[in-house]
């Protein structure tokens, strides 16, 4: 029963705990004027200056080799930085995707030139990435992607449409997943590849990024129309035709971290603030329940970090943690709103708890969609159980 094999998380480590102390001191200074409402943005919060400061501290690309700007620290040390940032509601959005999945993908599959050119900039907090996977007719069914790159003189010519592309309007690069060949008989995963797209060039010609405003009124994701975009030969990432394996590995990075269960943490903090130590027993029990879930998830999630460090493939375990984590994040909203008699609002001047609650009521539905839906996660778990 593969789904249950979570190795014991790495033990208490004085180096990691010293690092935790440093991170907390950094956050105490950098975050002192951020409102709870801003913190509620969690890893969607975007602040390039903040990312640069993290880069200066050596807290991006932490586990990568030094020759690519990394710091050769352990997965556990990296985990400590991630969870401290998330718990504080730090605006890590500018580098989050690059650090979490694009960088590791390039490290694994990129050419020496791609690594040297891009990884140090990510580690410096100066380079942001977006994820070019979903399309209008290809959501959960990623293999149905129709965007196509065709080999031409001097490179590749790309046509198609990507959608829900978070941060495409700001990102320096996209990792584009598309077709480069035909699906073969019986293998719909064949004939796909990944490309490194320089967004600053692409937006200048061949790519049109149109905002899609989310229901909260915010601009995070976009529609990306690609028409005769010419990519140079060296934009290919990894092997031509190996895109499916690469993207699957990238998704394991995408799903494996504490960002999959701490998105609503600011709401728990504000609830604790509002309820206070003399809260009624009913509230203590409810807050305790959310806390108990977080503690168990943190164990599981650190175990996944340890497995990544050990070079194992925790795709299945990551899916399981993501599903449990998304349920918890959404439960946090349901539970807290029944403990505090308030009407949520994000209008200017709303008190912190009211604004944070409103923010989370409106964003929580996305937690079990982005990065792969709840049903898809459960399908992956079922496969791990041997049912599919």
């Amino acid at each position, binding site marked *: *029963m593969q*789904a*249950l094999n*979570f190795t*014991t*998380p790495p033990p208490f480590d004085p180096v990691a705990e010293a690092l*935790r102390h440093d991170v907390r001191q950094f956050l105490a200074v950098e975050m002192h004027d951020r409102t709870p409402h801003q913190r509620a943005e969690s890893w969607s919060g975007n602040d390039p200056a903040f990312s640069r400061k993290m880069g200066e501290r050596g807290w991006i690309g932490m586990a990568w080799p030094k020759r690519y700007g990394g710091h050769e620290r352990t997965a556990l040390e990296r985990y400590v930085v991630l*969870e401290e940032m998330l*718990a*504080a509601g730090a605006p890590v959005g500018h580098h989050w995707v690059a650090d979490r999945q694009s960088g590791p993908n390039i490290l694994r599959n990129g050419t020496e030139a791609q690594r040297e050119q891009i990884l140090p900039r990510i580690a410096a907090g100066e380079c942001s990435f977006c994820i070019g996977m979903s399309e209008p007719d290809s959501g959960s069914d990623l293999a149905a992607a129709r965007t196509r790159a065709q080999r031409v003189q001097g490179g590749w010519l790309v046509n198609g449409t990507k959608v829900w592309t978070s941060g495409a309007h700001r990102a320096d690069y996209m990792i584009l997943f598309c077709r480069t060949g035909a699906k073969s008989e019986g293998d719909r995963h064949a004939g796909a590849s990944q490309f490194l797209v320089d967004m600053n060039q692409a937006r200048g010609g061949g790519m049109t990024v149109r905002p899609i405003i989310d229901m909260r009124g915010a601009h995070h994701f976009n529609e990306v129309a690609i028409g005769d975009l010419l990519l140079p030969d060296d934009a290919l990432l990894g092997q031509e035709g190996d895109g499916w394996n690469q993207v699957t590995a990238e998704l394991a990075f995408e799903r494996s971290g504490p960002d999959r269960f701490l998105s609503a*943490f600011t709401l*728990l*903090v*504000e609830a*604790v*603030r509002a*309820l*206070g*130590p003399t*809260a009624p*027993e009913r*509230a*203590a*029990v*409810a*807050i*305790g*329940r959310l*806390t*108990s*879930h*977080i*503690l*168990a*998830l*943190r*164990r*599981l999630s650190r*175990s996944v970090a340890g497995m990544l460090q050990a070079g194992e493939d925790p795709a299945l*375990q990551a899916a*399981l943690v993501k*599903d*449990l984590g998304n349920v918890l994040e959404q439960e946090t909203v349901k539970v807290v709103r029944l403990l505090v008699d308030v009407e949520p609002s994000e209008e200017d001047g709303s008190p912190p708890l009211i604004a944070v609650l409103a923010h989370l009521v409106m964003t929580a539905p996305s937690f079990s969609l982005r990065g792969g839906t709840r*049903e898809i*996660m*459960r*399908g992956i*778990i*079922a496969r*791990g*159980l*041997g*049912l*599919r």
Partner: protein
Amino acid sequence: MSDQLADSAERLFAANTGKAVIRAAEDGTFPQALWDAVTEAGFTAALLPEHTGGYGTTVMEAMALLQIAAAHAAPIPLAETMLAGWLLAQAGLSVPEGVLTLAPVRVRDVLTLRRSGDVWHLTGTASRIPWARDAAAIVVLAEGPNGPAVALLCPDGFTLSHDRNLAGEPRDTITIDAMLAADAVAPSPLAPAQLRAAGAAVRTVQIAGALSRALSLSVQYAQTRVQFGRPIGKFQAIQQNLAILAGHAAAAVAAADMAADALANGLDPLLVGAAKARAGEAASVAAGLAHQSHGAIGFTQEYELHFATRRLWSWRDEFGNEAEWNGVVGRAVLAAGPDGLWPALTAA
């Protein structure tokens, strides 16, 4: 734990625990052969320091053994014997052979110890005592004149009325009126709340074991039961339910890890409480899903799912249910306040 230890435990329980043994135990026959095998393997002493009769196993390893025993629904007081010996050893009392158990286990049951010349007089009534009827001795945490004290109580010192939990495990009421020699009593290193936490920790581990069994039975059943021309495990609704079940089973294993950690490191109420509460919730959800995916067969006495689920429904309430422990956790984080919340979690 070493794979070798786990393998030998797996083999031992597989060989000695079957439906017949469990049923006979529920009908009142103590599984002596199983107990002897477990004792001989040293499992009952797994929580004891070496100088008091242990074998040098770590707390983690002892808890892993317990988890395996629970996965097999071994109908024996392994957790109780481990824990009672552990308490005796900590109090500096020697650990007798045979079945041991603990009293009291309910919060309102208080046992009282008074000086009476050279000896001690122990009195009181305690309900739901695991395996009291089979115990060679009961390790009592009593209220003494100078605070909590540990006392070793032999069967001639109490009367007994039988009771059981939903899984048919003995949970007896004992009424004590006993004179105890001076060397059978020592000041307790643990407060009653800590003993309750220790009990919660071992039940958490057992829940994880029984839950893994409920999951594996459900998966096997879904792979073999055919309806509408295919194994029911091919239906997405079943797959999604079993994925949820697997998630709770994994959370329970994490909780068991937390519980073992706590038992080894001073029984932090936040950690034990979160563990027991999380495992209890997992037990409730998972048992329901396991039965749902089995259909009527799972509802029969003949089929073995209930050996796991009746234990889950019992153990989730023993040594504190989710409301009690979530309350403890909640109070702790509310006291820590908004700025202390996260540091409290990372320190747990």
